[in-house]
């Protein structure tokens, strides 16, 4: 896994480089937009970690240029700015994710892996969590290599949860997925679907955050979630 790190702060850049290298990732570390542009042109990388405030310009400029040139490499923004507008601005400019400094190493690793997985999805489309695999193009789902038959809605829900592993997907988003634009008021359509899904793929994958939404955790959870 090859990662292009664009970060001007010496200690932070070096820290990230060392930490990612320890996880067996190959890191190319540059400190200027100019160098980053050159690195992007000269070779392929799986992911760009992008700081926004760089000495020779704004990281967002680089990002927009990349997207204009149809560079599909996923970009994870590392920024000290955490206001909603800053995040939205970053995502609107074409970033795939946004991480606010200071971040926990585990979270950085998790997001890096998720993004790289997704980028592999362009040719492969397989997402895998603890023996549960989902193949997007063929819409096939397997639990420990045993195929599972899912309805269309169930597949959409699972795909949504697996693509954004470790993050809670709110009920509102999931309901929107089930009944686009419609109101799912006063009904338990979502619960029914999730419960069917659990029955088919087995317990222990989908964790409920009551009243909030559902999440699939990358790592096995010590706590057994209440249904």
């Amino acid at each position, binding site marked *: 896994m090859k990662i292009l790190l664009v970060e001007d*702060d010496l*200690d*932070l850049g*070096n*820290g*990230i480089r*060392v*930490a990612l290298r*320890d996880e067996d990732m190959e890191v190319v570390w540059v400190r200027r937009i100019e160098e980053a542009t050159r690195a992007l042109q000269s070779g392929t990388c799986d992911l760009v970690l992008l700081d926004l405030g760089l000495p020779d310009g704004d990281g967002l400029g680089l990002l927009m240029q990349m997207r204009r040139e149809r560079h599909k490499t996923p970009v994870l923004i*590392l920024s*000290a*700015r*955490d*206001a*909603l507008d800053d995040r939205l601005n970053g995502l609107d400019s074409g970033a795939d994710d946004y991480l*606010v*400094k*200071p*971040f*926990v*190493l585990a*979270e*950085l690793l998790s997001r890096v892996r998720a993004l790289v997985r997704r980028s592999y999805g362009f040719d492969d489309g397989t997402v895998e969590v603890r023996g549960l695999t989902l193949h997007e193009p063929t819409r096939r789902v397997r639990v420990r290599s045993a195929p599972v038959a899912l309805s269309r809605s169930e597949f959409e829900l699972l795909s949504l949860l697996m693509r954004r592993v*470790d*993050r*809670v*997907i*709110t*009920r*509102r988003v999931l309901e929107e997925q089930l009944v686009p634009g419609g109101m799912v*008021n006063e009904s338990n359509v979502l619960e029914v679907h999730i419960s069917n899904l659990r029955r088919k793929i087995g317990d222990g994958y989908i964790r409920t*955050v*009551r*009243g*909030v*939404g559902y*999440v699939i*955790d990358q790592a096995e*959870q*010590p*706590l057994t*979630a*209440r249904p």
Partner: protein
Amino acid sequence: MSAAVAAREPRWKRWTRPTLVRRLLLGQVATLALLWSVLVGLFLVEAFNQDLYGATDAYDAVLSVAENLADRPTLQHASLQALDVALREAYGDKNEPAMAPSVLVWQAGRLVYKSDGVPDTIRNSRLDTLERLFVEGRYWRASTRQSPLSDTRVALVTPSDRKQLIVTFNSRGYYLMPLIISIPFLLLPAWLSIRLALRPWREVSTEIAARGPKDLTPLGFEARHAELRPLVESVNALMQRLSESAARERNFIADAAHELRTPIAAIRINVEALQAQHRLTEHQGELLSGVLRSIDRATRLVGQLLRLMRSSADMDVGPNEKLALDELLQDRLATLSGLAQARGVELELVTTERDLRVLGAREGLTSMVDNLVENATKYSPPAGVVTVRLAREADQAVLTVSDQGPGIDAALRERVFDRFFRTPDQLQTGSGLGLAIVKSVVEKHGGQIALGVAEGGGSGLQVTVRLPLAQG
């Protein structure tokens, strides 16, 4: 505040407090009274000195009668008496006969005629001079003239004491009456006109008094009057300087906080990379955990500072967006559940109603929810549950966040809202800014916040926030 003070004051005291209206009114009336007094004084002096004693014709008439009839004393006396009566009528006051001029006539040093009630010992020491004489216990004003043809002398005499002054005042009432009558009539129009003229002034002061302590927007009052314009302009300039300096200060703090994040991130990633080494001894691991805890604390402090700055920047704009609280809660809890999960705490959201909308500022409400939930998570025991409830009561949205932690002593519940206050037996790291931020957000939205004990028999804290629902 000032209204409350005024209400406590006794009523009479309010009347003794100086006001501009009263000052102007007093000034006007005093000037008017002074003017009138001067005029009346002039009239009186003139009445005293000129009317009678400048009356050369009167002297001439008396002298010629006395001279022409000198050889016929009876006729002379009768004629003089008739002249005396005429003089009294012409110069005196019918109502106050005592104040009328009296006539004394001497011929060859002998008194030939004297009005009634005048002492016959009155003598001027010099001719043609108005003198004030003291005769028989009274003051008199008298002037004597001598005929150029004979030794006939005529004196015109009027009483001159305090009583006479009062009587003169009374008798010349027509000078004073307009003043006395007009003063009350002048007061009302004067007061009205002053009130009217000062209305723009009152409008300005009402507007200034009505603003909140943190409202730094320019005055809406449009000053068209030359006297008010400098005032309004300087108030506006002051407001602008204040808000600029507040914004500068906010930006400075925000910039400093942002700048701090990169080095904190660097410390963090380096420590974590170090922690990942397998060669560490237990002791070294422990020390590194201490470093990480401090980093967490610094991180949170920086985050809180930014939220505080953002929510006070929001304050300038105010709640301006109709936000569905249930959606906001779902989004925030989805984000915060990672932290809760890492601590082994379960989050749950119970909403009884959908689409509860409040007029709010998104950043402010977000930091309010984040702070409340982060706090509850932090103080929860392992495997504890943090419950967030959203319900509707009349025209209010009621948000409660309860945990199963140690709670807060009733005695300390007010103080936890102070900035940088932390409960004394604190084990958790924290900035002491969280609840201060929450409170400022709640107040900005016109809501209330209360701390209590969570239901379910434990000691857990329950925070209840009430926000008015958006209209329509």
